[in-house]
């Protein structure tokens, strides 16, 4: 994944490729000042003096050093300078046009989510949302924004969701997976209530720092363990959403699990069903099997796609999940980008291919049909 491989010529006509959705595009700031138009002087000065730490120990950078600078493809640096993902024109040229992206969902990272100071977190998230409108969705009609919320403060998060409830540029609410408490915890319920009310799905993207060791057996040593471990964090969050009755309480709520793979979903559903059956007395508030809530109310973005040998095993896995439940995603401009031309080497029907690459996304994101 970290080697340069021959790409389709960027100038090839987009119509030669099937139109796709991309459920996970990461727009980046070119610098801290990008947010200043929407950030008060107080918070600008605060960041300058104290930073914006997010429950891990480094002043700058992630808890585990990445495998590449900015975790990005080496060919994704804009010719005019700046970080990968910071130039709309280069993103259009390298990704949106070349890969025929018809619907691109923006998931800004490193915004203000999980920042220790809750008021600063809220201010940064709001700035991120205004920045998405001003710099991205207003300039390219293929792009849609996520309402980035300071999820550890659910009241402030709900207010932020309601602020954009009538704005069609926003099609989902964005959380990060490594929260301070499991996702189903009552503390987060105002977020789900506001999202259900606005008709927006809630996307849960891998990463974030909740202050807990990133495995239940303590802190691992390596970045590869952190990356592989995102699927375990998402499994824990999803288990909590089911068991706490979030899906039961908001039956129209949709959740989208982003950038943690998907092949883990069937075994998780089987295990939940089996032990739910034995431990039924603990959760009388649930009226359906865990797998039924998952089947009706949870979607998964595809990247990083699991790559079993033989590939037919992947087909079994998607059959179990349902071909209507996956949303194609590339993770552009990050290093583990999945190329749509090579991501699904399976013999499937035209309808399955069309749903996988675009149709499912059009149905799940608000107002994208």
């Amino acid at each position, binding site marked *: 994944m970290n080697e340069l491989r021959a790409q389709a010529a960027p100038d090839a006509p987009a119509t030669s490729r099937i139109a796709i959705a991309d459920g996970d595009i990461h727009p980046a700031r070119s610098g801290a000042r990008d947010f200043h138009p929407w950030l008060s002087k107080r918070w600008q000065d605060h960041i300058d003096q104290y930073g914006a730490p997010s429950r891990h120990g480094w002043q700058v950078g992630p808890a585990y050093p990445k495998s590449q600078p900015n975790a990005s493809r080496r060919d994704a640096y804009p010719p005019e300078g700046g970080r990968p993902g910071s130039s709309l024109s280069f993103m259009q040229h390298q990704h949106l046009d070349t890969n025929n992206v018809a619907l691109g969902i923006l998931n800004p990272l490193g915004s203000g989510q999980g920042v220790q100071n809750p008021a600063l977190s809220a201010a940064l998230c709001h700035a991120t949302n205004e920045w998405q409108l001003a710099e991205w969705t207003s300039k390219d009609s293929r792009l849609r924004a996520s309402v980035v919320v300071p999820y550890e403060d659910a009241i402030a998060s709900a207010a932020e969701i309601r602020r954009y409830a009538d704005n069609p540029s926003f099609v989902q609410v964005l959380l990060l997976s490594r929260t301070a408490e499991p996702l189903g915890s009552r503390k987060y319920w105002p977020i789900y209530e506001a999202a259900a009310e606005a008709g927006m799905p809630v996307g849960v993207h891998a990463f974030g720092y909740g202050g807990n060791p990133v495995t239940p057996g303590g*802190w691992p040593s390596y970045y590869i363990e952190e990356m592989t471990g995102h699927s375990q964090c998402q499994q824990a969050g999803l288990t909590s959403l089911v068991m706490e009755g979030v899906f039961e309480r908001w039956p129209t709520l949709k959740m989208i699990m982003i950038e943690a793979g998907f092949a883990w979903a069937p075994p998780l559903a089987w295990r939940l069903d089996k032990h739910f059956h034995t431990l039924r007395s603990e959760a009388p508030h649930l009226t359906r099997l865990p797998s039924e809530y998952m089947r009706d109310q949870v979607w998964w973005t595809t990247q990083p796609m699991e790559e079993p040998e033989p590939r037919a095993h992947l087909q079994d896995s998607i059959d179990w999940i349902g071909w209507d439940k996956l949303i194609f995603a590339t993770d552009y401009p990050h290093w583990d980008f999945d190329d749509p031309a090579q991501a699904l080497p399976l013999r499937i029907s035209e309808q399955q291919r069309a749903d996988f690459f675009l149709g499912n996304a059009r149905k799940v994101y608000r107002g994208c049909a």
Partner: protein
Amino acid sequence: MAGVPAGAIDCDIHPSVPSVAALMPYLEDHWREQVTIRGIDELNSISYPLNSPLTCRPDWRPATGRPAASIEMVRAQALDPFATSIAIANCLYGIQLLFSEDMAAAFARAVNDWMAREWLDREPRLRASIVVPIQNAEMAVDEINRCAADKRFVQVLLLVMGDTPLGRRHHWPIYAAAEKHGLAIGIHAGSAYHNPPTPVGWPSYYTEDYVGQAQAFQTQLTSLICEGVFTKFPNLKVVMLESGFTWLPAHLWRLTKYWRGLRMEIPWVDRAPGDIVRSNVRFSLQPVDGPPDQASLLKLFDHMQSDDLLLFSTDYPHNQFAGLSAMPDGLPPALVRKIAIENPRATYARLLETVQ
């Protein structure tokens, strides 16, 4: 009989410490006195709440006292009905939760001596795992060396959630000792509860804790492979106990993809994770967290790409199946025989020394 062949080797049963009083004869004077003076409670962790429907099957639950707490119960409920030739006793007493290393070491010695005298001496079909104070690797190694002369101990028992990931280098003396003595490393469901039992904090429901054990096993498998435990100890066998196994194919797909992309970070891992698992890691059968239909279960076995990985277990007295249906229906007879007999014999070197 649901396909359990006679002579099966049950790799995960749980005799209980009936009460701390049963350990008193095996505790050293200082600790016996401490138990009395300080009023030290039973070391039963929240992993298996006494009256939870999962902790003991209804037809195995005694009228009073703890499940599986007498040799008569274990014979009548776990050994005789399944015509088990050998069963490996994994004692789940909360020694790993203690914060005092000395106290943990003392209780581990007591439990292992109690196991040898009260169970192994009285029932020739039983083998056992050595409980160790994982809190301190040096003390754990001392306990392994002390017990290893008794060949009826076939494994070292760890819990899947402790203070630090099991691949971390400070645990390696334990693996060196196990490999030297021909002992497997058994990693069982359960936590020291020194970290939150999920990577996103403490859950509200016991069901989350139990279901989440599978995620803990996934991260520990990642840790053991990435740290290079099997590069350093190529003959070591690690057995995941009460782990579930239906998550394994999907987890290996993901880990292998990242290994391809990130192996520069862990250059000592020179084989694909799936190859390492097939040579060094095994899984107990129960609970079978399987798909509801037989055709899907057979596909899943195909995804595991090896018939060597599963070891028969009942997980007695935990409530994982009804009647005698410990083996999933519809498996090919040759695979059933491997799971029930051949795989356990190939995994536990010491079984061959003690079983004719």
